[in-house]
């Protein structure tokens, strides 16, 4: 813990850190690979929609001695699809199986009759429509559309449009990966899955916003200094909130992992699997994309701004000068001490305020950002 705590302190001061922004190309590549695989999985295997979405067949049996869970196994065997079994007040069973047409339903009916030990004629077979009908789906899409527009507007106002764009990219990234992996695993899509996806949508944005908030704060007075470029500030800000990101992700993932691996895996609970898989993948992707995708993307967009380009030039020029002046004491960007510590060794390369002015004035002839001060 003490080592962890010190690591936190060093991360906070920027003494150690991982160059998330600099190595972004690698992580873009990784993400692209996963996304492509997810889309491939989605197009090749497709989603296996549950009875709630596509309807199916319902079989009502007379009173039988077979238990609901046994009947479920039998029904799934007979149909090759997930089955929902409920006991009725009459003592009979209601068995619902998705993706079944009339011809197939007769087959299943015969098989069920054999398995359950009742007469085939006594089983009443009928087709059922989806309970999650088109109306619900359409309204859900409309709602999502409106939300996306509003959230982009909100983020553009609270932060800036670049962050809104990056957050949206990260969101799409997370959802695509989750849906793709869901298709690859081949679990049936139930309303639980959709609820899980919506939860992820919320979480992904939430996590990105927390990271952006710290980025916004640390880049507030960026043009007043000449020590760091925007990318470096962004990188420092990710590293400074890294402890928080890891802790939050662990805390959010632990219970879901419990559901997925213990609840679903060991205890063998069916629907829990559906939900916790989408949650697990989505939460992990959400935490990953905030750090590896969203923030580097903002940095990249931001560096295209003339103001930031000018800043970068100034910073590089100053570093070159510092290296010339006192080659021995030249500091690498990652290992530089805290700007606000104002420690003796720091005074050599001015931190903030008036001390930077002579330097930038001396070098910054005709630079736009120089005028704006």
């Amino acid at each position, binding site marked *: *813990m*003490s080592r962890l*705590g*010190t690591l936190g302190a060093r991360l*906070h001061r920027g003494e150690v850190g991982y160059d998330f922004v600099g190595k972004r190309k690698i992580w873009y590549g990784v993400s692209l690979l996963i996304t492509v695989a997810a889309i491939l999985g989605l197009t090749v295997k497709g989603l296996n929609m549950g009875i709630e979405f596509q309807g199916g067949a*319902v079989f009502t049996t007379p009173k039988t001695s077979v238990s609901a*869970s046994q009947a479920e196994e039998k029904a799934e065997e007979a149909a090759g699809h997930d089955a929902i079994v*409920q*006991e*009725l*007040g*009459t003592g009979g069973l*209601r068995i619902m199986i998705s993706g079944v047409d009339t011809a197939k339903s007769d087959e299943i009916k015969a098989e069920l009759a054999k398995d359950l030990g009742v007469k085939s004629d006594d089983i009443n077979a*009928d087709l*059922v429509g*989806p*309970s*999650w*009908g088109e*109306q*619900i789906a359409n*309204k859900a899409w409309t*709602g999502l559309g409106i*939300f996306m527009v*509003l*959230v982009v507007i909100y983020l553009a106002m609270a932060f800036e449009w670049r962050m809104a764009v990056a957050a949206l990219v990260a969101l799409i990234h997370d959802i695509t990966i989750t849906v793709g992996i869901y298709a690859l695993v081949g679990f049936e899509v139930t*309303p639980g899955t*959709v*609820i899980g996806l*919506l*939860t992820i*949508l*919320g*979480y992904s*944005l*939430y996590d990105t916003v*927390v990271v952006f908030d710290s980025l916004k704060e640390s880049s*507030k007075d960026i043009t*007043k200094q000449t020590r760091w470029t925007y990318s470096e500030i962004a990188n420092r800000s990710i590293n400074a909130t890294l402890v*928080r990101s890891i*802790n*939050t992700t*662990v*805390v*959010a993932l632990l*219970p*879901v992992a*419990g*559901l997925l691996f*213990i*609840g*679903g895996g060991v205890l063998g*609970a*069916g*629907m*829990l699997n559906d*939900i916790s898989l989408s*949650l697990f993948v989505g939460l992990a992707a959400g935490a990953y994309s905030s750090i590896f995708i969203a923030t580097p993307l903002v940095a990249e967009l931001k560096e295209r701004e003339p103001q930031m380009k000018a800043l970068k030039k100034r910073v590089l020029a100053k570093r070159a000068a510092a290296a010339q002046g006192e080659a021995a004491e030249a500091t690498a960007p990652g290992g530089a001490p805290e700007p*606000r510590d*104002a420690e003796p060794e720091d005074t050599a390369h001015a931190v903030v305020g008036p001390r930077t002015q002579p330097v930038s004035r001396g070098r910054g002839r005709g630079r736009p950002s120089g005028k704006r001060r």
Partner: protein
Amino acid sequence: MRVDSRAGRLERKNEKVAAPKKGRRTSAQSRPGRSLVLILIAIVALTGGMFLSGHTTPRLGIDLAGGTSITLKAKSEPGQENAVNQTNMNTAVGIIERRVNGLGVSEAEVQTQGNDNIIVNIPRGTNEKQAREQVGTTAQLYFRPVIATEVSAGEATASPSPSASGSASPSADKDKATSSDSSATPSSSATPSASATSQGRAVTDALKADSTASPSASASPSGSASAAASASPAATGTPDPSSDLQQQYAALDCTDPEQRAKAGDGVKPSESTVACGTNSQGQWQKYILGPAEVEGTDVDDASAVFDTQSAAGWKVTMEFTDAGAKKFADITGKLAQNQSPQNQFAIVLDGEVVSDPYVSQALTGGSAEISGSFNQESAESLANVLSYGALPLSFEEQSVTTVTAALGGEQLQAGLIAGAIGLALVIIYLVVYYRGLSLIAIFSLLVSAALTYTIMALLGPTIGFALNLPAVCGAIVAIGITADSFIVYFERIRDEIREGRTLRPAVERAWPRARRTILVSDFVSFLAAAVLFIVTVGKVQGFAFTLGLTTLLDVVVVFLFTKPLMTILARSKFFSSGHSWSGLDPKRLGAKPPLRRTRRVSAPVEPKEA
């Protein structure tokens, strides 16, 4: 002690620095005890309410607890054999879904079965009787002018209208009474006057006028009744009710359920018709009604209201759409010029007259109400049914049966066990990483859990909120989001300590920054919840409700519990001295001692990073 006084001085200094710049109020920080008491009272009140209401567990959805399954069969009506088709069935499913699951939180499921059946599954614990009423009602609502009306007695079938005049006098009285709530005391003149003092609403005003007139009206009962029968066509200028209709009217015996059910069957809204209804004495009343002037589709919204002023009991008020309000003003304006009973309009629901108020002037308020012998349940059912519109088909109940949980108890049990293990891991992680601070996190999580649980339990009986398995999983994920708020705050505090501050100023300085992060990110979650709740229906709406609730609770807990508790604990020696188990030990956090000495130097720079 020395430590304490110094911390206090530093705190004041920091407040001075922070306050002018950001204009932040520090009052919340100075009275941490008050908000703690507030939230404790809230928890106690909610828990007490939960036990008082007798619903100590949240209602579970049909997947976890089972429930009742109602099978409805569409009736094909004569002349409209093609009406039972896919489109109409789907529309009916949509409307029934909204009726039983208006807020999306009751977890009821509606789907078609075969060609002409609809299955409605309602979780256990729902008011089954009410639900059955709601799903079965077609809710075709029409406002029709009354052309003639009288009490329908058994003998009326045999005798033509003139002979009915004898019984007409009670009828005239009762008409008025129907809408004026005096169901218990029919002949008492006190009741009408009681209602007279009451409502400001236009319709009831009209009723009031009639009620007061009624005592004198008894003098001319036969006259008005016969006039109604014979003179009506000419007087109203409505299309002549064919002699056919007159005959139907004469022959109609509303006391006979079979005849009642058939009355007005298959009549188009644009045609005149005969209909039955009960008056306030519980007697059957029969009517000849003109073409429908306002329809159910003109009703924008309906709600059940308890009329406290006139002791009228429950009634249903309807708000019209703009077009509906105009139509309603037109018809009431026309009717107001007529003589009784042609100044009445009948509110016809599914072929039965539920109310027949008098009109004395055009009603332009854009609203109307149905009063009568409602109780709370029936008024709410009717309002609900009217709000979501009429079914395109009429249905009859085919079977009602209980069903067991689709997922069975073992799924919920597995989920809970897994969730508990997960939670235990979270607590272990927090304790190992945050040590003493984890106490605050765990208490906050407990408070959050207590609030969520009691509110969900209380929402069961009030708005029909039911938890299904996905919602249980969502609640588990919510743990992560709630814990994140604490983690953001703790990390801020630790960052402040790393910069060399002592605990108390660190706690206060970290708060505004953590608060902003928490608010901004929770706002995004809440935005998602609000938009989805307003726009969507069904389970998505239910999800949005849960998300919004947990997000709000997160903010409440962090503001009213975590922060005040942190402030109070920061005063304790254990935390402020940076005990190695407090999770705030400056040495372990890697704070650099020299920084403390240079605080003065760093102070002017502070605003830059704040």
